[in-house]
């Protein structure tokens, strides 16, 4: 038997899928060929990872519950629905979390905006948005001077 043939048959051999007529020549080849024997050992090593673990826990009364639901006409689709619902609940929890984060971020932004606005506003009571206010007195004086000038026309420059 050629090594190439032997290698392709090793998985089936290790899985007990070969007839004795097929397994016999392969077994002989494995005795004679160290590299192919190594391949078979390699697969056996890998299969050891699949050792049976402890049995899964079956809840008490499971069979009775299922039989009762079956007789009540539960088709099983309800359970699938429940699974979807469970997924929905998980989605709902996620949505709540996202909404809470969004609300917190919005609140933070609002507070930040108010803070920035406060910092941007003029803080001194003497500062006014009307730039003419500080010179109001001067404006009144100017007005008064004009009035006085009108009352005394000689004081005005002569017209050309």
């Amino acid at each position, binding site marked *: 038997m050629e090594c190439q043939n032997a290698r392709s048959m090793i998985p089936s051999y290790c899985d007990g899928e070969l007839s004795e007529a097929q397994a016999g020549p392969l077994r002989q080849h494995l005795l004679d060929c160290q590299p192919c024997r190594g391949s078979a050992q390699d697969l056996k090593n890998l299969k050891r990872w699949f050792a049976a673990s402890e049995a*899964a826990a079956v809840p008490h009364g499971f069979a009775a519950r299922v039989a009762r639901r079956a007789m009540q006409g539960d088709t099983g689709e309800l359970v699938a629905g429940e699974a979807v619902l*469970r997924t929905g609940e998980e989605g709902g929890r996620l949505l709540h979390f996202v909404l809470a984060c969004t609300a917190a971020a919005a609140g933070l932004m609002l507070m930040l905006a108010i803070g920035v606005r406060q910092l941007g506003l003029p803080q001194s009571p003497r500062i006014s948005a009307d730039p003419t206010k500080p010179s109001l007195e001067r404006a009144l004086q100017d007005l008064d001077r004009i009035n006085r000038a009108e009352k005394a026309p000689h004081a005005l420059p002569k017209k050309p």
Partner: protein
Amino acid sequence: MEQEATDDTCLVEEALGGNQASFQLLVERYEQRIFNLIRHYTRNPVEIEDLAQETFLKAFRRLSSFQRQSSFYTWLYRIGVNTILDSLKRRGRSPVQAVEDLEAVPAASSASSPSPSATLEREEIARITQGVLEELPEIFRTVLVLREYEDMAYQDIADMLGISIGTVESRLFRARARFKERLLQKHPEFGNES
């Protein structure tokens, strides 16, 4: 085994006639194996129970289509596997998508396969294996579970998954290669042993 099959057929007949106790007996007979099967796909106890329940309820609904000449367990098992795969699809982990991964699987590594250390407890080996299996595409995980844990013959796996024996062989080959690769990536400490 033959006696069990006969009993199963009788119980199926009685359950079809509306006998709740008979169906309960069928569930009790196979609940452990179905729970064990599902546990290879999820570790969440609530989810395991949901899927097991769904499997048995679907089985009851389709009980009239059960062919008496085949094993009840093989028939039930097929429903269980399909229920699991449907659930994985619902959760967005489509086994169909995973088929594309077949092309991405590298050829079997020339490094020798690690063997679990003699000092590792059985449960520790199971935990490591489960962790690696969870990272494999569903189609690879399923053939490994059916072959290695359920000790199913290639023909039975082919029948259950609706694929050819040749596909079972090639999928199993690639699944083992991927398992070995992921095992060594996650646990390089095992690479020096064997």
